[in-house]
């Protein structure tokens, strides 16, 4: 197993996300808009899932855009409605109750979420910045991101590190993470669990087992701790010795480029 010298940041993020996926996992992938938001919400997660299928997790399945177990070896050339409607898949969950019930029955192992605000305890805000009744700006609402954090076993936040994104406390709790830390999540009546990893363009974070504060697990090759901290409005837990994020292997890079996203449908920005 040789590590690659030549890889993009997106490829590193795909590989990092892929390593968090286990064989047999059922993975909920959300929807993204366009450009970077699409790459982060959809492109990297789908590529990571496919990479995991091709390497260590052949029995992993995804749910995306009403498709359960779409054939990831047949990613369509464009993602307009008709291509989605006709993508070969094991099941088109046209009855949205099926997806909602699968969420609330806790059948999903992993979800990928991104948000304009993430706080120290992994709470997310995609609803409103500032005063909820007079926000600036009003954001997109909730979608299923609330449900992901309520029910999914190992939610992964995948978002770029930015000072205005990583805030001490979210203005509005759309998705309950570890709430106020410690046992506060369970005390509010939620299932144990909560966000598992935060994968960014500069570093990967987890949550301290006891305090539930965000803590750095690894920093990407070539990035310094100061550069990480400069993009955060709070100081995460910082172990004395921080490993470097494992680089992609040459085989992983080859798979991404040749088999998974040769037409640049997924990693668009």
């Amino acid at each position, binding site marked *: 197993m040789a590590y690659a010298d030549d890889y993009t940041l997106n490829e590193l993020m795909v590989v990092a996300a892929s390593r968090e996926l286990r064989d047999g996992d059922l993975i909920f992938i959300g929807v993204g*808009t366009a450009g970077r938001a699409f790459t982060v919400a959809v492109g990297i997660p789908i590529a990571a899932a496919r990479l995991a299928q091709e390497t260590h997790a052949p029995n992993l399945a995804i749910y995306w855009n009403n498709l359960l177990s779409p054939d990831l070896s047949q990613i369509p050339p464009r993602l307009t409605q008709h291509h989605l409607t006709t993508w070969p898949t094991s099941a*088109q969950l046209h009855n949205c109750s099926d997806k909602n019930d699968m969420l609330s029955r806790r059948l999903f192992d992993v979800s990928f979420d991104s948000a304009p605000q993430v706080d120290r305890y992994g709470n997310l805000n995609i609803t409103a910045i500032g005063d909820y009744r007079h926000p600036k700006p009003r954001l*997109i609402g909730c979608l299923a991101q609330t449900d992901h954090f309520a029910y999914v076993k190992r939610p992964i936040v995948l978002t770029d590190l930015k000072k205005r994104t990583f805030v001490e406390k979210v203005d509005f709790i*759309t998705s309950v993470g570890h709430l106020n830390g410690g046992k506060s999540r369970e005390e509010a*009546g939620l299932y144990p669990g909560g966000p598992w990893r935060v994968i960014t363009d500069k570093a990967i974070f987890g949550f301290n087992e006891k305090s539930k504060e965000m803590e750095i697990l690894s920093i990407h090759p070539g990035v310094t701790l100061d550069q990480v901290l400069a993009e955060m409005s709070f100081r995460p837990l910082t172990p004395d010795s921080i490993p470097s994020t494992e680089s992609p292997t040459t085989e992983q890079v080859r798979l991404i480029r040749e088999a998974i996203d040769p037409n640049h449908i997924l990693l668009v920005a």
Partner: protein
Amino acid sequence: MKSKLVSMAEAAALVPSGSSIAIGGSIIRRSPVALIRELIRQGKKDFTVLAYPAGFTTDMLAGAGALKRVEAVYEGLFQFGQSYNFRRGVEAGVIDIRDFSEVAMAARFRAAASGLPFMPTDALLGTGMAANNPEQIREITCPFTGRRLHAVEPANPDFTLLHGYIGDEYGNVQFPLVRDADDLDPVFAKGAKRLIVTVEKIVPHSEILKNPNLTYIPHVWVEAIVEAPFGAHPLSCDGYYDEDEEHMYYYQACSKPGNFAEYADRYIYGTKDHWDYLAKALTPERIFALSAR
């Protein structure tokens, strides 16, 4: 069976200003856009919109100054970006908003469909949505397990507006077999007090009888049905046509800087009915390009 086939104008005339309306479809798919355009044309306003993910239709109502309140899981235009008219209204405090997660909003529509006065859910524990909406989200305790839960109020809009595929004059509406998600349209329909459906095509009743398993809206739930080819345009209708990207970019080019009026003058107030709209918004070449093949 009684014919319920009416014109678009007659259908829109049923819905008074101030009504709460559930709008079917999802963001940029299979919403009753032509019917919403006609509501705006008729000067109707003060609507409360209930949706699963809201999208283009809700933003048009906001742009037209016809939107009072939204209860939904999302507002935006997916790959076309933000829902600018809606956002401005919320930011100005003109549009009231009630946020729900997908599981919670679906539970509200299920309660309505089952005639239940509430539905239990544990989706909203600890969230800002629950903290800000004690009117519709109340804490309860499970009588079996003692678990803390919320009761959510049913979604009981005055009118339910859907766009579908084929239907007969009596109001039986059918799916195509190859399709994307139904969103909550079947649940909306089942829980509707007064249900108006626009469809791509009215077919003879004998066609419906051939595939009764594809009927997702039986005639007994329907008050009025309208034939409206490309009735979801510029949105997609899965299995029929794709979203009209050029049209959507123009819509956003107007809406983002606050020029919704330019769009509306051209495509809503400037068209006298759905056929006139189609003539102005589409060419034969464009119709073929968008059609699913």
